[in-house]
């Protein structure tokens, strides 16, 4: 589904990603973990070219990514992304946040795109709030709308970058529940999170990163039972 080969990212003072090779499979839930600054977000953002790699290749759904608007747009409409700080469109209500891309990227009719948006908002339990602007929603609600905005595109995979890290503790649960529901439906997901219990519950596979390198890449159960590396051991102990 997504293949990364010899991926290097350097912002100018040393490589932040050092020759990463990975393959992500459909219907798989991959959790990327690792200490702050290890390159998790950078890796995720290279998968849809929000960050352009310094070297190496990224193939998504059979297409090699390159800095060509047509190529990127055609791939990005098929892989969605959910951000730590939601990034809802502040001037649009929840429904329009979700309907915008179906309407203008997928070129659906107004009715169809609204139907999509409504269905997606229902899936995340936000049907009551479709006319609310982002400023009138709690953090958890905003993130659920952001997930609905992704779902409305019927994506083949969703990338999540620490979707609960910006939330107040009391709002974390509702977002994790929403993601668990997606996992049950076998949505392909690649997610960066520090929520250890959650990762244990839903992950098929764990990628553990440190200083721009993949240190471990193993089935989740095996990883949690006994991490191979001392770094991962210490990391888990620290979070537990």
């Amino acid at each position, binding site marked *: 589904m997504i293949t990364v080969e010899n991926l290097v990212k350097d912002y100018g003072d040393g490589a932040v990603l050092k020759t990463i090779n990975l393959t992500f499979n459909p219907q798989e839930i991959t959790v990327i973990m690792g200490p702050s600054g290890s390159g998790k977000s950078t890796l995720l953002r290279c998968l849809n070219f929000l960050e352009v790699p310094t070297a190496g290749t990224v193939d998504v759904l059979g297409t090699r990514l390159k800095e*060509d608007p047509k190529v990127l747009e055609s791939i990005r409409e098929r892989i969605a992304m959910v951000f730590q700080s939601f990034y809802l469109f502040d*001037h*649009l*209500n929840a429904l329009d946040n979700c309907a915008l891309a179906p*309407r*203008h*990227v997928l070129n659906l009719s107004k009715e169809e795109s609204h139907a999509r948006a409504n269905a997606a908002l229902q899936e995340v339990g936000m049907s009551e709030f479709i006319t609310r602007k982002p400023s009138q929603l709690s953090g958890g609600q905003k993130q659920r709308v*952001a997930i609905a905005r992704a779902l409305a595109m019927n994506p083949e995979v969703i990338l999540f970058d620490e979707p609960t890290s910006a939330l107040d503790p009391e709002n974390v649960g509702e977002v994790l529940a929403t993601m668990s529901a997606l996992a049950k439906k076998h949505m392909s997901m690649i997610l960066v999170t520090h929520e250890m219990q959650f990762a244990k519950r839903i992950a098929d596979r764990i990628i553990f990163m440190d200083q721009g390198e993949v240190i471990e890449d193993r089935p989740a159960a095996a990883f949690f039972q006994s991490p191979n590396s001392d770094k991962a051991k210490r990391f888990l102990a620290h979070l537990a």
Partner: protein
Amino acid sequence: MSFLSRLWTLFVNGYPLLLEGLQSTLLLAFLGTIFGLFIALILITVQSFHVMPGEPFITRAIKHTSARLSKMYVAFFRGTPMLVQAMVFYYGLNQMGVRIGFFAAGLIVVSLNTAAYLTEVLKAGLNSLDVGQTEASLSLGMSHFQTYVRILLPQALKNMVPAIGNELIVNIKDTAVLSVIGVGELFYMGRAIASTTYRYTEAFILVSIIYLVTVLIAVELLKRVAAALGKEGPRLSSQSEGLV
């Protein structure tokens, strides 16, 4: 005769002229602000084109050049007095054999000038938006241009409503300089009255009072417009639904 009664006499005798002048001033300020806003939209859009290495050379060249020209335009109009612009424009056209009316010439100068200022305001408004919204939009497969038109511009425009009002107020006052090219606005009429009656002080005080009252009324009206736009959030959102 007391000073006040002299003022009053001047007003009673001069008011048809003053009214005509005021009308021109308001028209120039209002239309100039509207046209200026439209020109500013073009200027800032041209500056906002996103250039990608993967695009054809000719596309990139056009984007670069037009952005460059737009910036030069803004620099010129912000860097020179409107008075001088009016002179250059008016005599320049004359020399080229183009004859247009005083009012039209004045309106063009105000519009071009306003455009430069509003372009800067728009630019600041766009820059103040979180780049995250752009990334979210791009990650959905929206193009840079779609992101600009549907996400960034509506928010920048909404935030600049006070600045547009401000520019209107500035234009009510600054259009006085257009009297130098013979535009019959309020100050021009005041000067005409002064030079026919020889009551210079009274004439200009009278004109000042009219400017002041006009500006105060305009400020009050703009406050209400802003409040209405703010309060009528649903109204605005139904407009943006229209976009969707």
